[in-house]
């Protein structure tokens, strides 16, 4: 059943162009006024945004290049409201797209043609915290950082910490399987979600999982986390809570260049020490940070900074610090500092966490890329990414999760310059191809969304995608829930049509 992919899905199709054509299953008739009246009845006047001016802010999420205005935005306050909205959408043949805080970077919360957004930000209550069994039950609109703040009194935290954690929500994190700097030791969102309540695309409410994180059957929770809102709308999540480590040590090593910093990361991995985080910030990022309000006092001679965080039992940490020191010195680092107190630790992290904000100084627009390579290939791929951007005359700044091999090349540009924009897109495609060529993948934590949907074939062929369609169709057989995301909208293969194979009538769940 292997098929050649048609040429119009070739890598030359940019993410910008790719989302422009209407999706095949998209709505053709505008919904009636009765539909909007029905929504208003469900969520109330304050829960419905349908006026031109109100919708402007909802044209995109963190991926700003491909704005698309939704028909309406609903802001439900309960699971029942979400389910009622979904049923109304089905009756009126309107597609729907779940949205958290809109901080996603791959367009997962973009309103596809003729769809409404269901934003869960008003469902923001922490329903239960159990310090003994270390779990919390939360609504999807709870902000990531607010959950950790709320449980701090119990000596616990919620481990996944995406850079947007001051704004992003648990519901969005579940949809995207969000990562963050500390995934190196603690894993990504999928390692911390125990159970979910989901409004399925047919409007029914279903619970999956339990408070253990293990069931006796299919791992539905594991399949739903990271499904980018294409299998349903998460209306409640039970998440694992992690004890705050007894001690934390943070080191900052200064290198002449990003390549030896990457080599030092390789040495740490081989040494057997598992840091909580290993992050690299390159020269251009340091310059931007030092010129901004996030200034961390880094020397301007620094070509790259490696931040390493260790945690655990304090008696074990001196040996680990020594191992990190040895790895960095073996790669010729200029200097290595260990934070003496919490204030200094936060100063070290400011260079990392303030990087995206500071880069606003570099150019009007920033394309934040996301790809992963085996960590042994980091030195070579950083050089390659630099070469690609030089060739396209683009300004590049790197700030990335080195310990995971997760690159974030940030390309500075001005969208008002169409030629520069075209070069940004071309360079992005080349970076993805270079990463895949060494065994990497096209996204480590930002998701596929609409941004990378048409690059999926770099990693997966039609046979690899087929089981993904089967999973999607089990939950979302007619594609009404977040259409056009994650995997190409339709198969390019007649035999693969579910009706042609005789199970089109299989009921969903």
């Amino acid at each position, binding site marked *: 059943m292997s098929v050649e992919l048609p040429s119009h899905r070739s890598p030359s199709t940019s993410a910008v162009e790719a989302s422009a054509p209407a999706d095949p299953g998209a709505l053709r008739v505008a919904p009636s006024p009765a539909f909007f009246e029905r929504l208003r009845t469900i969520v109330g006047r304050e829960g419905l945004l349908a006026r031109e001016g109100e919708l402007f802010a909802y044209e995109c999420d963190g991926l700003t290049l491909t704005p698309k205005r939704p028909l309406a935005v609903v802001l439900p306050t309960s699971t029942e409201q979400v389910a009622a909205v979904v049923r109304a959408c089905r009756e009126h043949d309107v597609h729907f797209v779940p949205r958290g805080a809109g901080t996603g970077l791959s367009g997962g919360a973009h309103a596809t043609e003729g769809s409404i957004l269901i934003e869960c930000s008003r469902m923001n209550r922490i329903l239960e915290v159990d310090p003994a*069994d270390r779990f919390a039950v939360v609504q999807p609109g709870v902000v990531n950082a607010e959950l950790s703040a709320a449980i701090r009194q119990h000596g616990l935290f919620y481990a996944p910490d995406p850079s947007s954690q001051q704004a992003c929500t648990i519901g969005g994190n579940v949809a995207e399987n969000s990562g963050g700097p500390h995934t190196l030791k603690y894993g990504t969102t999928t390692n911390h979600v125990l159970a979910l309540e989901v409004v399925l695309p047919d409007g029914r409410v279903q619970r999956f999982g339990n408070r253990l994180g293990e069931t006796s059957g299919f791992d539905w929770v594991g399949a739903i986390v990271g499904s980018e809102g294409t299998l349903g709308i998460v209306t409640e999540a039970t998440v694992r809570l992690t004890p705050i480590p007894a001690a934390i040590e943070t080191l900052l090593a200064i290198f002449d260049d990003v390549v030896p910093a990457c080599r030092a990361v390789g040495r740490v*991995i081989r040494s*057997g020490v598992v840091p909580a985080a290993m992050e690299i910030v390159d020269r251009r990022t340091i310059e931007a940070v030092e010129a901004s309000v996030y200034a961390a006092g880094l020397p301007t001679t620094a070509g790259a900074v490696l931040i390493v965080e260790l945690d655990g039992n304090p008696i074990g940490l001196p040996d680990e610090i020594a191992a990190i020191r040895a790895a960095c010195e073996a790669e010729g680092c200029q200097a290595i500092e260990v934070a003496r107190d919490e204030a200094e630790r936060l100063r070290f992290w400011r260079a990392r966490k303030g990087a995206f904000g500071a880069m606003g100084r570099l150019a009007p627009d920033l394309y934040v890329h996301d790809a992963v390579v085996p960590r042994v290939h980091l030195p070579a791929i950083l050089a390659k990414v630099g070469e690609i951007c030089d060739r396209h005359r683009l300004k590049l700044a790197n700030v990335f999760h080195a310990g995971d091999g997760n690159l974030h090349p940030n390309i500075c540009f001005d969208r008002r310059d169409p030629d520069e924009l075209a070069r940004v897109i071309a360079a992005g495609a080349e970076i993805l191809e270079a990463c895949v060529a060494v065994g990497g993948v096209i996204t480590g934590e930002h998701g596929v969304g609409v941004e990378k949907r048409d690059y999926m074939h770099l990693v997966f062929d039609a*046979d690899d995608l087929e089981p993904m369609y089967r*999973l999607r169709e089990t939950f979302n057989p007619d594609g009404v829930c977040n259409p056009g995301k994650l995997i190409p909208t339709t198969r390019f293969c007649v035999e693969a049509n579910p009706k042609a194979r005789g199970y089109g009538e299989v009921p*969903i*769940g």
Partner: protein
Amino acid sequence: MSSAWDEVMAEARAERIVVPGATVEAVLAPADVGALGRVLAAANAGSHGLLVMGGRTRLHQANPARPLAAAVSLEAITGVDEFEPDEGVVHARAGTPIAALREVVAAEGWELPLDPPGASSTVGGTIASAATGPRAHAFGGVSDAILGLEVVGADGVASKCGGRVVKNVTGYDLAKLYCGSYGTLGIVTGAWLRLRPRPAVCEAVRAWPPSVPELFERCRALARLDSVRAILWHESPGEGAPEVVFELAGSDAVVAHDRERIAAELDVDRVGTDRVDALRDERAIDPSTLAPDEVVLRARALGSRSEALVNAMLESGLSVSVDLGLGVVHARGCVEAIAALERIRERAISEGGFAVVSAIAADRVGAIDVFGPQDGGPALARSLKARFDPAGILNPGRFVEGT
């Protein structure tokens, strides 16, 4: 019967394998992934049910099979084909024995974070059954170790999901679905696995706890020590003092610290870590040894409520082997009425968990659903199964909800 199927069966060897509800007389052992694809395509075309097997450790943990034409063994699809000591990842074919893979990676300072009961467990079988052992306390579940999988679908088409990198959100996380679905959605042929650095020190201590309540009370704090990676306790009613074994792993300093913490709570002596392996492997069952009314269960409850579940099992006259930090209880004993077994399951569910019937005597097969009630009910499980295996050839009937 189609000729493609006849050709496939011409390669079969005669061997009798008894599983719940069915007996198979022929075993196919395709030499490679291509040959496995041809077996499945032929079986799919003729709707021939297949028993899928790896090391055969958990073949009895299943609902009664619908008719089976043959068994497919992954024994020939074996070997470690890529190992990157600088990266801490390894690729192994499904038939690779866990024990062999463990040795390969240990030679370069890495540790395989898989710990299934049973000396013959394979990579593929461990993934298919999501089988964990006492060290899941530190290792986590089987799917936590999986970076990517290769799978042959019921239609014989090979596909892959995930990758070889340690962080990846490219596409649906299908590995989560394949892991623990007992080969009913596709047959895993190979896996990229994430390794852990081999600890500098690994040792075990054991104690004879004064009483069950005191054991649970003391272990609540001890389970949270950094280096503790297994706490295994077993008790058989009327069979002498129960034993608890702690395995500690980490740096010299941390292990020494934690050993002293345990010694302050309990009278301990040193044992080899092979004591943990031995107690773990006792949980692998030879179903031919079961008495007519004997059952084996694997149940789990929320940590704070596992004591109640353990007590309920001990009161029912079952012997237990418990992973204290995890709330996992392996229980074995005679249960006269199926209704009593259902009550034990209900108890596990009410304590926040589940109970799987790992083995039951042949004449009671089918009297109780092995996996118990499922989220989404029969419709969702069957809908998924129908899309992945419409002809129902992969372990038909053996998994949840008749899938």
